[in-house]
């Protein structure tokens, strides 16, 4: 272990060999990431994980996906995958880093030089924390049916409407909003992309308690929210296009075997704790699920190879999310069955000398077939774009 790895901003990461690069990331995480924050059972709030991200910011690792001239690491796709893989391997909690994942890449592609200068450095400095204002009560899967409205008024816009399922909005300083700017245009055509400060009158955040008892999701109410005209990104009425183009290869992470693997690990512990390991019926079930995860990994690696070659991600990527999330749910369900009566207990519970959150995998798996595009929407996409079935 190297306690003071080279984190110099001058390092040309892409010039390193994959092995060397991986080792440097690994060494740093192992030496510096707080042990008590490894593999958290829920998303962490900024007051829990903020310290770590400020540190990432200090050493120049906060935006691995951004080009160097904007303060990022400028990693190529192969190196970026390694960077994320090492974070997952060490159980590093990813903050809901919408500024890094969405706003930055969006402004770098579609923003004016003034917008880039105004917003990007503050994201890098962790001064601004962003949340995503997309879904609405009546615009979920049919997002283009959104009704939040932005009306031109002098040198700015006035926004009215409501957003929902906004992850960690309570921590965010800013929100990016899809709002309708032309009510007469066809659904997708009249939408624009806005940046707004959360700390202003008219924006109200209300947490939503979920079935697991957590409050990571929120409603965001927008009442006569004024934003200056220069906070509109791209061309007016063409926000839908740029929002769609943002779905980069990060989508592949929705289909990573990380969660099914985690659930399988919990299942093995529950089996051990409940004395099921030598039960032939259980052993067969476990082998099936283990094979399922290995098969899923083979599929994941096919897409990873595409990304590494720098090719565009094909629409078939939707299958990966389906395979991953449905496998995650199947394993999580098996955890509950294996735990028997302990399946009724909330939170981490004593089980055969171990302490296990039996329902933890279940509650994490349950919404996975809903967020990031429901599995039904993914199937629609596959039917239309891959199978070319009629509509």
């Amino acid at each position, binding site marked *: 272990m190297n306690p003071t790895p080279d984190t110099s901003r001058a390092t040309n990461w892409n010039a390193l060999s994959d092995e060397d690069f991986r080792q440097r990331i690994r060494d740093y995480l192992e030496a510096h990431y707080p042990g008590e924050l490894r593999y958290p059972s829920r998303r962490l709030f900024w007051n829990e994980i903020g310290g770590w991200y400020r540190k990432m910011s200090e050493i120049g690792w906060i935006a691995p996906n951004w080009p160097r001239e904007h303060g990022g690491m400028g990693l190529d796709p192969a190196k970026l995958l390694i960077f994320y893989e090492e974070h997952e391997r060490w159980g590093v909690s990813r903050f809901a880093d919408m500024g890094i994942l969405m706003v930055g890449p969006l402004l770098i592609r579609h923003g004016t030089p003034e917008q880039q200068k105004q917003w990007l450095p503050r994201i890098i400095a962790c001064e601004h924390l962003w949340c995503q204002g997309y879904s609405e009560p009546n615009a979920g899967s049919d997002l283009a049916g959104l009704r939040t409205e932005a009306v031109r008024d002098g040198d700015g816009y006035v926004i009215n409407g409501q957003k929902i399922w906004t992850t960690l909005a309570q921590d965010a300083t800013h929100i990016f909003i899809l709002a309708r700017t032309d009510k007469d245009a066809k659904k997708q055509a009249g939408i624009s992309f806005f940046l707004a400060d959360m700390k202003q009158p008219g924006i109200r955040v209300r947490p939503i308690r979920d079935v697991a008892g957590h409050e990571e999701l929120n409603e965001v109410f927008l009442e006569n929210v004024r934003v200056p005209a220069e906070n509109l990104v791209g061309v007016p009425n063409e926000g839908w296009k740029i929002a769609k183009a943002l779905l980069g290869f990060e989508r592949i992470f929705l289909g990573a075997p990380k969660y099914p693997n985690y659930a399988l690990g919990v299942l093995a512990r529950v089996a051990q704790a409940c004395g099921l390991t030598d039960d032939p019926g259980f052993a*067969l079930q476990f082998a099936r699920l283990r094979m399922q995860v290995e098969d899923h990994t083979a599929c994941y690696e096919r897409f990873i190879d595409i990304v590494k070659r720098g090719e565009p991600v094909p629409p078939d990527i939707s299958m990966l999310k389906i395979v991953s999330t449905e496998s995650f749910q199947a394993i999580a369900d098996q955890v509950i069955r294996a735990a028997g009566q302990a399946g009724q207990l909330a939170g981490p519970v004593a089980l055969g000398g171990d302490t296990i959150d039996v329902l933890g995998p279940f509650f994490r798996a349950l919404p996975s077939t809903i967020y990031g595009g429901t599995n039904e929407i993914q199937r*629609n996409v596959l039917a239309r774009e891959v*199978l070319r079935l009629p509509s």
Partner: protein
Amino acid sequence: MLADAARQFAGRRAAPARIRACRNRSPDFDADVWKDMAELGWLAMLVPEDDGGMASSPGTGLADMGQLVYEWGAACGPEPLLATGVLAASLLVASDGPARADFLARTMEAAAVPAVAWLDDGASCTREAEGWRVSGQARFVTPADATDFLLVFAPGSGQPALRVAAGTPGLHVTREPRVDGTGAALLSLRDVRVPERDLLARAGTAASASETARDHALILAAVYMTGTMRTINAMTQEYLRTRTQFGKPIGAFQALQHKAVDMHIAEQLARDVAQNACVLVDAGCTSDQRACLASRAKARAGESLDRVARMAVQLHGAIGYTDEYDLSLYLNRALVLSAWLGNADEHVRRYARHAPPFEAANA
């Protein structure tokens, strides 16, 4: 290139009409097509260069062979590419007896068409002055019309592997019809004399040679089955685009679209697993790793093909239940392939026997 050539050949030589013509007859495949395949080098893909084949070393060549098998599986030709071209050929490659070299050469040029016969537990193989005397039974031996049978005894029996020509005194062959119109042989051997020169694999090698051959056949059977799924899915999607009910193509109905998508996912996942197994085995692995890869590939392909074939009939409706419609050929082939060398359930158990102890990544 290999794949393109294979696809063209399969398209020309495995038309549904010929598959139908071969059904329920003996021989259940066409010798001239088999000769053509041999001339194209299809039977040399798993044979090492030192033996006149195309594989860089023994135990490799699966990825290349996979390209041919995939296309042949898509066409569902009745010629025994898996049973002879993979299972028997791999057994010969991994063998070390005096019969190996000559018989391998004859197999590659289609002068011999061998079938592997795993003898039941009760079989006996007695050493005699000039060879062996064998009694016992073997079932599910394919191709049923083989010119020679490659006898393999139960693992742990410490017996060699031996070649016995069809028609040898004491060897009785009964044909059991398979659901796809090909046959499976039931061998009954009673005091069959096998001379020294027909020793394929010595006692110390036979068990590992037959396990290598089994794994290669399982993996390439999985590849073949993904080809069959490709054809079934393409047929079904085309049907969904063209069949009209309630005033629109039935493929516009979401309930049917989602079933078609699940069939597509089953095909792609099975293909990823089977291809991955080819690549990893070619790169070299332990026998336990190889067994896990092989059983995973066959289990995944079996389960996927079972679902794809059944769902294809459902999406076609009544026409899919007729013999006349070509889907029947692929459905019946699917039933055969799912069971051949062990179905999905059996391979889950086999995987469990060979898998290393589970180590959680992060629990």
